[in-house]
């Protein structure tokens, strides 16, 4: 029965007005950096699109990504598209449990083989299959099985995209990102800890509208959302340019809202849409709240030095290494000059002999 219903009908059934739907379409278009002229096309495509089938797998994760999606203060269109309309399997959100839940997954896969979207959050442990299982099935096995029939895969959150926290040194579970396992399907990374909800639905909308995934950057992220660094779009950027920096979290500079670079802000090397879309329904984002960017949408952000270390302060080295280097240099130098000295003594001896 569901097969015949379009997305537009389903949304209407959920109480979304035409006006609300068009607003969503235009927001999506602007977020994806599409011209306003594309809004009707998106709306038409989405209205006529069949209900998408989405299977959401959660592996080594903290449920933060799901929380981020569902804890919006009011149900949004993007939430509805995902959680109410499309999700066939999400073991945190679905009503069914136990073998019924797994049965639902199997049915969804079978009915939509080759067409469903696979969303993954969490990393996959390779160290021991028993580290993380669902219904007794190791994460790796389940991912390979579900990915086989997927039209495309969306890795949601930094864990799924780049390994994230489980991957941090010393990586006890041997955690790897989805991209290490799934090589033969279109894959989009939507990193962030957690990622911005609208980015996930934006990708979904793009997929439904154009039938393909959006353009990606070198790290597999949609360029439309991850094309600019936090620093580039930060409203505190002018303070950086003027060399006005907060030195501590409670000094004059912090109160005046100066740049947080010195307090470890990773904005310059972090690509995400936080500074433009913001969080909590556009309320604010970390820097606006007075805390530097942690760089959570970047690979290995846990291992990139302390969160409160300025970007320009480099790890490693240490005075011990330099002292050893100085010692070695002096030793080699003295050796070299001792050899040269022998040469000089020999030449002097030679000259004395000649003059005799």
């Amino acid at each position, binding site marked *: 029965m569901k097969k015949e219903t379009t997305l537009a009908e389903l949304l209407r059934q959920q109480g979304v007005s035409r006006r609300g739907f068009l607003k969503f379409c235009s927001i999506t278009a602007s977020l994806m950096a599409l011209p306003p002229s594309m809004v009707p096309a998106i709306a038409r495509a989405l209205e006529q699109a069949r209900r998408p089938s989405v299977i959401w797998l959660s592996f080594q994760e903290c449920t933060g990504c799901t929380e981020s999606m569902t804890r919006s203060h009011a149900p949004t269109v993007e939430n509805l598209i995902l959680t109410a309309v499309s999700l066939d399997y999400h073991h945190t959100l679905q009503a069914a449990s136990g073998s019924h839940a797994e049965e639902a997954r199997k049915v969804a896969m079978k009915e939509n083989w080759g067409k469903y979207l696979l969303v993954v959050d969490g990393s996959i442990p390779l160290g021991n299959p028993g580290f993380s299982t669902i219904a007794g099935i190791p994460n790796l096995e389940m991912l390979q099985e579900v990915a086989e029939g997927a039209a495309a895969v969306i890795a949601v959150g930094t864990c799924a995209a780049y390994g994230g926290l489980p991957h941090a040194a010393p990586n006890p579970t041997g955690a790897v990102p989805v991209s290490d396992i799934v090589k033969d399907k279109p894959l989009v990374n939507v990193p962030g800890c957690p990622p911005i909800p609208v980015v996930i639905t934006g990708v979904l909308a793009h997929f439904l509208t154009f039938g393909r995934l959006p353009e990606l950057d070198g790290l597999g992220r949609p360029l439309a959302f991850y094309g600019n660094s936090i620093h580039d779009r930060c409203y505190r950027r002018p303070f950086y340019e003027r060399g006005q920096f907060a030195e501590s979290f409670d000094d004059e500079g912090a109160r005046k809202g100066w740049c947080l670079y010195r307090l470890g802000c990773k904005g310059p090397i972090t690509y995400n849409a936080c500074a433009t879309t913001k969080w909590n329904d556009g309320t604010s984002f970390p820097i606006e709240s007075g805390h530097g960017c942690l760089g959570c949408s970047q690979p290995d952000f846990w291992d990139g030095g302390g969160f409160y270390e300025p970007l320009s302060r480099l790890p490693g080295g240490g005075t011990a290494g330099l002292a050893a280097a100085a010692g070695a240099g002096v030793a*080699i*130098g003295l050796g070299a000059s001792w050899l040269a000295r022998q040469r000089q003594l020999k030449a002097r001896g030679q000259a004395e002999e000649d003059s005799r």
Partner: protein
Amino acid sequence: MSVNMENFQRFAEAVKQLGSEAPACKLTDEECLAAVKETFARRLTPAMAVQLESCVHCGQCAEACHYYVETGDPKYTPIRKLDLLKRFYRREMSPLRWLHRLYTRDITLDDLSQWQELVFDSCTECARCSMVCPMGINIAEMVLVNRQALAAAHLIPPELRTMAQEQADNASLFGVGSEQFTQMVKQLEAQGLEVHLDREQADILLLTSVVDILLFNDVLAASVKLLNLLEKSWTFSSEGFEAANFGFLSGVESVQKAATERVIRAARACGAKVVIVPECGHAYPSLRWEAANLEGEPLPFEVLAISEFLGRELKVGNLKLKKIGRQKKVSFHDPCKVSRHSGADRDPRELLRALDVDFREPESGGIMNWCCGGGAGVFLINRAADLRQAAFRRKMKQFDATGADSVVLSCGSCRLNFMVGAQRANWDKGIESLVELVAANVVEKSPPADRGSAIQTNGDPS
């Protein structure tokens, strides 16, 4: 001022013949290179090493060099003259030699003959480049090491080889040995001067030079007159009279040492406390700075340039000078080796001030003076004649700008070079000796007898 122009022309002819008598080289190619490298290794000091390490190839030294400035030929860039030493150092002595060897060419026999021109013909070791170098590289001092290295390989210009050989073999220069000097002394005595020769005991040993003996007899006479007037206990030595040191100039260390030793022996023989070096540029550092190190112990006497000695006597009031007056406009040419190399640039000025002449300090005077272009033996190298003349243009410009009528000098070879240069360029400035000028205007304590007639004039240009 009487310079016998006939003698001068004869001397110039003798210089032209110099090279033809040069002894031939008996070393094989390999021995030449080995000798050069051995000398470099032997003479290298940590001071030179750190300076060779620090060059940034900025080329500013060129702007200080009279040969580059007057010809515009980049091959005369002073630091480039050290290339042989530099390359040897980088390849074989530097702390980083294993790295430098990868991109530093070894020195070849061709290089040696090419660099002969650069360290002999076109460098007077005047050290003006050392004054401009932002890294403080003492180029002149290292050019000397290059000369020594080439000398060890018998690769010095024939003129200098002849001179060094003569000084080594006969202890004479241009045929002026002990005997000829003794005759000169007699000649001076015939003029009525009281000359002390080979006194057993004297406080001061006065040296002279072949140039003064052959050409500038009046300078010699003036020195004698002044020492007598000052009532000094002084003497000449028939064995150690020659201040010029062609071992030093040509880089032949054995000859340098022998020539130095003759003077030291003579000074020891009479128990001299002071040895006075005549108006001869290179002779001063040779004895003042080099001799003790060749000897291996501090010298038992003090070494003074005659200008320095006179300046000192003036200061203590022993020397009293007549005021010549401002109608006489003079300038002064500092000998590089005495002023820039040795810090004795103040005394000549004190003397000229005491004479109350209209003293015109030239631009770039004192320790910044431009070299005459003929120092460090370059004057004798015939093939360098045109280059010298080019460099001399700088001197003419410098002194023309002062408006002085004559240039006072305190170095025989500078004076020779000025005379030759002026003759070639028809330059009409007077060229005179400081010592002669002083001697001619000294206040004599006793009424002058009929002696000293040869040194009466106020030093008009000859």
